[in-house]
């Protein structure tokens, strides 16, 4: 199920606001790419364009060479490209198991049989440590559990490329440590590719093979996590100009 | 092609009808703009306003123009009652209206419409009633216009202007407009959202019932418990045409709808003109959901 998604010169304007201005990046199954940048730099907008929730104003998106920009979200999921929501959006009236089963049946796995989908969802809930809450309605979950449910659902779609929108935000230090370890284990097991949009540097740095930094909708730096951290342009973007002359 | 003179007369009547259409829809526009909910029972409150004018005329001999303010006052109380009865539970402590509460208010107000219209039928029977008040007419060039409709048109525009001034110039008015744009922000500014939403809703009902009183001038004997089912869709089309939440939208929407009906009938007949007038709603929703006004 290997997939490559190529976004070239993506622009996205909302009326006068130029959220994304000419960003290009390539995602491949098995590789984890971090996407960082200060607030309002267009990270979520870019994510929405790649996932098909927003249409790019300019630029193209291809999956395995096939042009897909402008495809609606549900068709992108069919191609194995799925996204989580920054603010979790569980199906409140359904149990966790049913939430995951929906993803099983409508994602690229196309699991037709509700019974087996429910069976399989139990396994996925276990991988993210939610098996005890399987039959609880999603409305009873804590914010942290809801984020895990988002993750479980996007995995359940069987997506080859997963776009994660601040999935590590708002966690306590040891919760963060467990979640990073969990993510790494699951990624190694299932081998999906991921674009991790994050503010939590510790997560991005430990997990990403490659990191892209954008500011005001433009790519200002790219490279291995170490290279990016030392790049003066990045520091300036984050900490303001005076900080650059203080060596770490 | 009908003669120019005929078209001008139709247009004149279209404008007059458009003004009264605008004021009966304006209340809906206010509630929709402020509380972001759609009051399916809107038509029923127009009917209550019309009956208010009828009874005020029957027992106290007040003509409909003067009973409009009385209806407006009653409408304030009715609006507050409606807010706490139907909306408070759905809107309290929420940043925006959830998909679920939209459903709840839609169905609850539909039940309210059934309840009030049939209660009115039981209390006042199905007979059509009207207010025998017609102050004659005046000549404007070759046009002979009914004074009643003219007064109503002026009153309608006045009411819409008054609400516009209230919302833009007064403290409470601005609080309501702030609430309609961003509920959490209003809280941060120390404004109690419940109070503001209640006042906004009350204002909406007050204008609706006053509109019902003004509409009764157009219906020599057309007031009956079932009239709500006719004027609710008209109000919805007008608000969507003009743009929900836009203060002058009601006037633009009202006049557009009335002109389509009154002038259109000269070309395609009354039935088709009415059908077209109602169906304009769908392309507007498709291409300009925020209405004709920019």
């Amino acid at each position, binding site marked *: 199920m290997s997939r490559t998604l190529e976004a070239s010169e993506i622009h996205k304007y909302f009326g006068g606001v130029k959220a994304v201005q000419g960003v290009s990046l390539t995602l491949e199954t098995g590789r984890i790419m971090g996407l960082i940048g200060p607030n309002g730099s267009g990270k979520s907008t870019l994510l929405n364009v790649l996932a098909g929730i927003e249409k790019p104003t300019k630029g193209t998106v291809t999956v395995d060479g096939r042009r897909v920009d402008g495809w609606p979200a549900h068709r992108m999921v069919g191609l194995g490209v799925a996204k989580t929501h920054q603010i979790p959006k569980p199906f409140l009236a359904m149990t966790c198991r049913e939430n995951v089963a929906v993803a099983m049946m409508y994602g690229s796995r196309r699991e037709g049989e509700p019974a087996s989908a429910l069976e399989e969802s139990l396994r996925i809930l276990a991988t993210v440590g939610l098996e005890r809450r399987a039959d609880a309605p999603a409305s009873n979950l804590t914010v942290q559990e809801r984020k895990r449910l988002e993750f479980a659902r996007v995995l359940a779609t069987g997506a080859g490329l997963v776009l994660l929108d601040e999935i590590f935000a708002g966690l306590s230090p040891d919760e963060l440590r467990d979640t990073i370890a969990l993510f790494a284990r699951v990624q190694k097991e299932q081998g999906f590719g991921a674009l991790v949009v994050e503010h939590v540097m510790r997560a991005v740095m430990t997990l990403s093979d490659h990191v892209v930094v954008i500011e005001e909708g433009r790519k200002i730096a790219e490279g291995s996590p170490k290279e990016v951290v030392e790049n003066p342009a990045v520091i300036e973007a984050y900490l303001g100009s005076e900080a650059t002359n203080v060596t770490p | 092609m009908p003669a120019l003179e005929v078209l001008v007369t139709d247009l004149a009547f279209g404008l007059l009808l458009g003004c009264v259409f605008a004021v009966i829809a304006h209340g809906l526009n206010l509630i929709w703009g402020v509380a972001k909910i759609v009051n399916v029972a809107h038509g029923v409150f127009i009917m209550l306003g019309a009956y208010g004018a009828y009874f005020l005329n029957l027992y106290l001999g007040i003509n409909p123009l003067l009973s409009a303010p009385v209806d407006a006052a009653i409408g304030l109380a009715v609006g507050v009652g409606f807010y706490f009865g139907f909306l408070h539970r759905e809107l309290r402590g929420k940043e925006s209206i959830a998909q679920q509460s939209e459903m709840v208010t839609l169905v609850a107000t539909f039940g309210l419409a059934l309840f009030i219209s049939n209660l009115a039928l039981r209390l006042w029977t199905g007979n*059509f009633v009207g207010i025998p008040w017609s102050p004659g007419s005046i000549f404007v060039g070759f046009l002979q216009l009914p004074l009643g409709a003219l007064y109503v048109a002026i009153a309608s525009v006045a009411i819409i202007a008054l609400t516009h001034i209230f919302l833009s110039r007064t403290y409470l008015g601005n609080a309501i407009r702030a609430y309609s744009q961003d509920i959490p922000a209003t809280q941060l500014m120390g404004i109690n959202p419940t109070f503001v939403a209640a006042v906004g809703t009350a204002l909406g009902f007050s204008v609706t019932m006053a509109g019902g009183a003004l509409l009764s001038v157009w219906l020599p004997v057309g007031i009956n418990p079932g009239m709500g089912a006719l004027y609710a869709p008209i109000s919805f089309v007008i608000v969507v045409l003009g743009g929900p939440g836009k203060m002058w939208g009601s006037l633009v929407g009202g006049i557009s709808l009335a002109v389509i009906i009154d002038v259109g009938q000269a070309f395609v007949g009354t039935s088709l003109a009415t059908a077209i007038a109602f169906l304009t709603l769908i392309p507007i929703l498709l291409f300009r959901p925020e209405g004709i006004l920019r």
Partner: protein
Amino acid sequence: MSQPAEPETGTPSAPKTGRGKLIAIVVAVLVLVAVGAAAVYYLTQPPGPTGTIKVGFTISLTGRYNVEGTNSRNGIMTAANWINSHGGIKAQGTVYNISLVFYDDQSIPGNVNTLYPQIVEQDKAQFLLAPYSTLLTGTAAPIADNYDRVMLSHGGAADTIWTQTTRRNLVEVLSPASVYLKGAVEWIHTNHAADKIAVLHESDPFSTLAADSAISYAQSLGLNVVYNQSYPTGATDLSPQLNAAMAAGADDLLGGGHFNDGLLIMNQLKTIWTPKFVSLLVAVTEPSFQAQLQATANNVTGPSQWESAVAYGPTLAQSLGLPWYGPTPTEFTQLYGSLNAGASPSYHSAEAGGALLVLAQAIGRANSLNTTDVRAALGNMHIMNFFGQFQIAASGLQIAHSMIVVQWQAGALKIVYPADVAQASVQYPYTGS
């Protein structure tokens, strides 16, 4: 009733006489109870079938037609009262009283479907009257055929029921919609043949039929119809239509529909156009038409099935060589007033009461309660009663009852056409004040 079994064993035998007395008391009680039950049963049961003819119908006491429906019911009850207090109906040597059984159909066709079968099967009605309105009559008609019961239509005027469908047992008492405006067109033709006519009517079946028939009849007489437009029920503004009619050069205005739109037309005529002749359906005959419009009502004409002042009576019947039956219009109006708190009967009350009288007379003439005989009697009967003449074509369509044209003159409603029943001549032109 079997004797209560006496427990044989186990009880100490009471003294012989005691036991006998006990049995006697029990039997007495039982007999008393039986007699009481029989009495109650008998009293509630209407008098034996020989003495009563059951006439069943549904009528709209709520919903769209509640006003016309209530008036019709009151008219039927008045007629039944008259028949029962004037010797009832004589058939096969027995005198029958009429007993009515009716339900509210809420102006909904679906209810007609369930209530008429109930009236026939459960309440055992032998004869039927149709509900009010064209649609409900159309729905009830096949039921009458299916249960083989005669049904008289008093509130369904659209000819289409008789022209588009064949209903063996459905008989029309009132004039069909197509002739409503016939009188007005005839009058225009004889007195002002040069007048151009505009027709503006409501889009419901009754008004559409009345208007379309008036147009074809006028054109057959060579009159010039320059404007013809319909408007949906509940229209708020008809000024553009009236304006267009004037612009088309029309002299006379025919049409309207029901009470509220008739008033709307009159109200908007004040500021737009003063036609020379106005004839509107339904609205003009309502007493509150003049109350609302005051002077503007003067010289406005309208068709009516019946007016209490109409000069139908035994003398007129005799002059036409027709047998007369039932109360005179004034007698009917007085009886109606006494039964309905002084109210005066509208033409809906008259057409419904007239239908019951026609039925009573037909049963008398057929001298039988059998549907086929009574339907045959209705078929070849040409009589007159307080509601007017009655004669039907083979299909059941009414052909003899003629409409009358009324006109408000100086605040009073006068019968102005046809000549043989007219109280005054038509005032022309309409001045609007």
